Structures are given as structure tokens and as C-alpha cells.
């Protein structure tokens, strides 16, 4: 969780400091959901994510240096600089893609789960999405498909109360997204998304159910996005400071630190050392990103297809310059 928080804050700082052009969507405040769910997964399990996906990628095991380099648009990035913040993927750890279209990655997770079903493996797929995607038709189609085929997929809705600047109590016909899963006969649960233990336990039940052929589960995690929709957005134009403060008092990281100090006798020294290590690894990631070369010009044309005539990609006058 601390790695996610520090990564989000550092990425935003670097964006401003280095005048990078990318769109960043910070998940600060929502760390417990990513970390609590992904702690149950192995590299063989699949994960799809959203435009607000840094936390999911980190929790799934994507190296922060390759994520930072991706945000810098460099060739050493997770996607060789061709995707950016919203499209981070690393198949080596089962992170099969963040996605910039709200709701669009949900059926992809169903497809990964379908592979597990067809091939008879015990892999599962997790799809993270927000309350905004709860109003996309494709979620509903996907829930129905997952239910009738008993796909090993876990739908995790991070309900952070806002779809961009639109409150979910305005845009959604129900208070809890989870009730919508009932319409598809999918077991659902609502958890405190600020409490990693609670998220972990709910995900554990869901993932075990999926692995043992019990089909999909829907988890709604009530959480909060500390920052604006994107880096540079001022959320106080559409929500109250008092609301922000209430959620920050329930901060998943500081509360978890308190808990492990009290219940597990973890010392301040140990916790501080973890934070110091994270800071070092972030320095190293930024350094790696800055030193990573820009993509080769020919990379403009690579990876569009596995095979295609170059003269039909390189059109539009580029060669005449």
C-alpha cells in the first residue's frame, strides 16, 4: 500500500517537474483494495484494470521502474513507452492490461477466465473497475455471461463515489453497486475498501470459489479517491473538504500501521525501514525512467500487426519530411 501511495505522489510530482504530457489518474486513498485483492493472486492469475490502474499493477507485481519509465514514455517502460499510464500491462506477472475506456476491460477478464475454463486450469481472473463502469452496459453483459458459464472471474468494483466529477448518488439508480450482481445470480459482498484485511478476506473467499469451479463473485469496495479525477483536477469544485477529511481519517495505510503496531508488535523502526526502502526504490525508478532511451522512430510502426506491409503503415507524408 505504501508503495502505491508513494508511487502515485511521486509520479504526479515528476509529471509536473518534467513537463510530461501524460494523463495521470491517482489511486491514492484506494490502496487497500488493490493490495487486499492481489495478495490472493499468483503470477498465473489474470488481472485487468482501469485508467486508475497504477495501484493494481503494483499490487500484481509490475516493477515500478518499468511503470515509471512507461509514464515517461521511454523504451524501458512496461509497454516500451507506447501505452502510457492508462495501459500498463505485464504479462509475466498476469497483469493483462489497464484500460482507458470505462468498463471496456471487464469482458477481457471474462475471456481470460474462459481460457482457464476451456483448458481446465485453476487460474482465475480479476477485473477492477469503478462506480462509473457500473453504469456501462458491458458490465451487465459480462456479469450475465460469467454467471451462465460459471467463469472463474471476480468483479471488483471500487466505488469511490465519483465518476470523474459526477457523484454516484446522482448517476446510479441504487446506493450499492453490489445489488446489481443479484440480478445475475452472482454472489456479492460489500466491504470497507479502506480496510485491507477486510478486502483480503472477501477476495480470498471469492477467489477460492472461482478456483474450485464455483463461478464469479462480485465485490464492492467502498473507498475514496483522495485526489482529483486526474492530476491537475481540483476535486473541491465538486465535493466538500469535510467529506475528504472524513475519508482521510480512515486512511488505509496509517490505520493499518497502527493496527500492526498494536496487534502484531511491529515496531516503528521496522515500518520506517520499509518506507525508506520504498523511497529508495522510487528514486531508482525515476532515475531508470530518465535514463531510459526514447523509443526508436521506427517504433511508431511496430506492433500494429504481427505482419503487414510497411508501405501501408508508413503513409501520410512522414517519409517526405
Amino acid at each position, binding site marked *: 500500500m505504501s508503495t502505491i501511495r508513494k508511487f502515485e505522489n511521486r509520479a504526479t510530482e515528476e509529471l509536473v517537474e518534467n513537463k510530461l504530457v501524460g494523463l495521470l489518474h491517482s489511486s491514492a486513498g484506494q490502496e487497500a483494495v488493490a493490495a487486499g485483492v492481489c495478495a490472493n493472486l499468483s503470477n498465473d492469475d489474470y488481472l485487468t484494470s482501469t485508467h486508475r490502474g497504477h495501484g493494481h499493477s503494483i499490487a500484481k507485481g509490475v516493477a515500478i521502474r518499468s511503470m515509471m519509465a512507461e509514464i515517461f514514455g521511454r523504451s524501458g517502460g512496461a509497454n516500451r513507452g*507506447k501505452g502510457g499510464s492508462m495501459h500498463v500491462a505485464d504479462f509475466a506477472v498476469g497483469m493483462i492490461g489497464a484500460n482507458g475506456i470505462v468498463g471496456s476491460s471487464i469482458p477481457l477478464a471474462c475471456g481470460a477466465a*474462459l481460457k482457464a475454463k476451456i483448458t481446465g486450469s485453476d487460474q482465475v481472473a480479476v477485473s477492477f473497475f469503478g462506480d462509473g463502469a457500473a453504469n456501462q452496459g*458491458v458490465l451487465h453483459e*459480462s456479469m450475465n455471461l460469467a454467471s451462465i458459464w460459471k467463469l472463474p472471474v471476480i468483479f471488483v468494483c471500487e466505488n469511490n463515489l465519483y465518476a470523474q466529477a459526477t457523484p454516484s448518488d446522482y448517476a446510479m439508480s441504487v446506493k450499492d453497486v453490489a445489488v446489481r450482481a443479484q440480478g445475475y445470480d452472482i454472489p456479492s459482498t460489500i466491504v470497507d475498501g479502506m480496510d485491507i484485511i477486510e478486502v483480503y478476506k472477501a477476495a480470498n473467499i471469492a477467489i477460492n470459489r472461482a478456483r474450485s469451479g464455483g463461478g464469479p463473485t462480485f465485490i464492492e469496495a467502498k473507498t475514496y479517491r483522495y485526489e482529483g479525477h486526474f492530476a491537475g483536477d481540483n476535486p473541491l469544485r465538486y465535493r466538500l473538504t469535510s467529506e475528504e477529511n472524513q475519508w482521510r481519517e480512515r486512511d488505509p495505510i496509517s490505520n493499518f500501521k497502527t493496527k500492526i503496531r498494536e496487534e502484531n508488535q511491529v515496531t516503528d523502526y521496522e515500518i520506517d525501514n520499509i518506507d525508506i526502502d520504498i523511497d529508495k526504490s522510487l528514486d531508482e525508478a525515476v532515475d531508470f525512467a530518465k535514463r531510459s532511451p526514447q523509443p526508436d522512430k521506427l517504433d511508431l510502426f511496430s506492433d*500494429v500487426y504481427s*505482419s503487414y506491409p510497411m508501405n501501408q503503415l508508413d503513409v501520410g507524408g512522414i517519409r517526405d519530411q
Partner: protein
Amino acid sequence: MINENTTGLFAPQQGRKLRYSEAQKEAITYSMRQDEKVFIMGEDIVGAAGRSDLGFSDAWGPPSRSTQGLFTEFGELRVLDTPISEAAFIGAAIGSAAVGMRPIVELMFIDFVGVCMDQLLNNASKIKYMLGGQVDIPLTVITRMGAGVGWGAQHSESIYSLLVHLPGIKVLAPSDAYTAKGLLQSAINDNDPVIFCDHKKLLNVSSVVPEEPYELPIGKARVMRKGYDITLVGISYMTSVCMEAANILESQGIDVEVVDLLSLSPIDDSTILESVRKTGALIVVDEDNPRCGMASDIISMVAEKGFKDLKAAPRMVTAPHTPVPYSQALESLYVPDANRVVSVAKKVMEKKI
């Protein structure tokens, strides 16, 4: 498997005749036997799903009937009937392809692309690129198109140009049973997303199809008849229309070359340019709507690369910029036919320098 170098893009003169849809089924069946990663899903590709307890199975097959019998051979895990949820099942096909499967998916009619366009536009076409080449998306989408059968505005379009427009996607439009089998085999074996467009009017047309499996090259057009006065480029069923027009024009002393495009993306620009270099005149016959379509695309390509060879202004013979009408009186006006091609060809020839 024999390859195109021995067969060429033309069927043997003699041999077993098969309907287009049966030829297609051979390619699907062979692929599924060869590779366990290949599976197929779509709406009613089996029919009566879940009703085997009542003795029902294989009730339908898609409109082409090209999947009938697959369920019996390959079972419910590899031949899946889907709910009418194109966004979900085409998205799921894309997701499965990203993790190593080779899905074939049925989009019943190309008009229905609207309900799954996000999955094709934002996922199928872009995933490989956005992810820096980490994965291929070996997806085959089989869909149906074509007017002239009275199915109205939402079951009759040939709007492949919407998909040709997308980098990352390949689009094929075979013109007979022989090319249907070979190109579908190539599409399934290809590592990129391929949209495979069947024309309704071709599904029951029989021609010679070798029994053994074979691939045909993606991105190659074929010259159906040689001529020196004017080039007609046909797409899918329009190639038959071009051939009919060519026979009429021949009787009127005009020597026509017909190019059967077969592959819309990538496109065989060199075969078209070579033909225009010889004839100096070009008509593209395309059942799609005219704006930003294949016909305008081909003509602009020839204007850029073969301007000096043109001895008359190129023309498009296409559907009008309207939806497909239902009334037969109107629909017969909508779909390009041989008479329209002949009239336009004669005008082009009159103005040829």
C-alpha cells in the same frame, strides 16, 4: 497443407464442388482438430443450447450454417452458444486471445458491429500496440453482409470500411467457396485480429474446392480476367457483378480487366496499380456506402501512386449515401448491378484520352 504457390489464387478447373458455407466449415473443422487453442462462439452457432435433455441439439447454426455439426465433434467447451451480448462475448474472445487462445467468433451480421464496436476499436485493434507488442490477438470474427435480399436497413449493410479504417485489424472479403476456405484458414492461422466478411448471396454458391486444407495469402488480389481498356475492381459479391458487366461490355467491344480484391486490409495496391498502368481507366465496384469507403480509398491510392497512368477520371460504383431500403423497387436501385457498371464504364471510355 498445400500453399498458394502451388494452387495460386485460383481453384483447380475440376474437382469436388462445395457450397461456400460448407467450404468455410472445412477450414473451421480442420483448425479445431489441429489446434486445441482454437474454439468458436457466437449467437446460435449451435442452437437449442442446454436442451440436450429434451433431445434437442444443433438446432440452428448461424445464417451460413457453417458451424453445424461442430458441437457434436468438439463439445460444449469449444463450441459455445452465447447470449445476445456482442460486447461481452467479442470482448471475451479478445481477452482469451490475449492469453493464448485462438478464438473464432460469430458476429451474425456486420450491421451489429455497433454493439461491439468499442471492443473492436479500443481493444482488438489497439492492445498489441498499446502494450508495446507484449501479445498478439489471434482473433477471427466471421460476419455476414450484403443487400438485395429484402432484410432491411439493419441486416443488409456492407460497412466493412468502418473496420478497414482501424489500424491493427485485417479485413477479408472472399468472393467464392474456394477463396472462402483458403482465406478463412489463413485468418484463423494469422496472429492478428481478422474480420472475415461473408456476402449473403455467396453462401449457397458452389464451386470447386480442394478437399485438403490450404491457405491463401492475406493481402493479395487476383485478376479474374485480363483486358486492356478498363479496370474494374470488385469486392466480394461485386466481383460477380463486375464479371457480368465485363461480358456485356465485351460484346460491345470494350476489353475489361477485373480485379477481385479479396483482402481489404492489407490491400494489394500493386495489382491494382499494375492493372491501371495497362488500362488507364478505373472503376471500383463496392456495395458499401460511398463516403470514406473502399472505393474512394482505392481511387485516392491510384491518384497518389498511379496518376500518370490514368487516361480518364476514375469512378466509383457504390451504394448511395443512404441506408438500405426495404422495398425491392428501391433496394434494386441501391445495390450496384451489372447494368449500372456498364453505363458508368461506357461514360469513362467516352472520356478516355
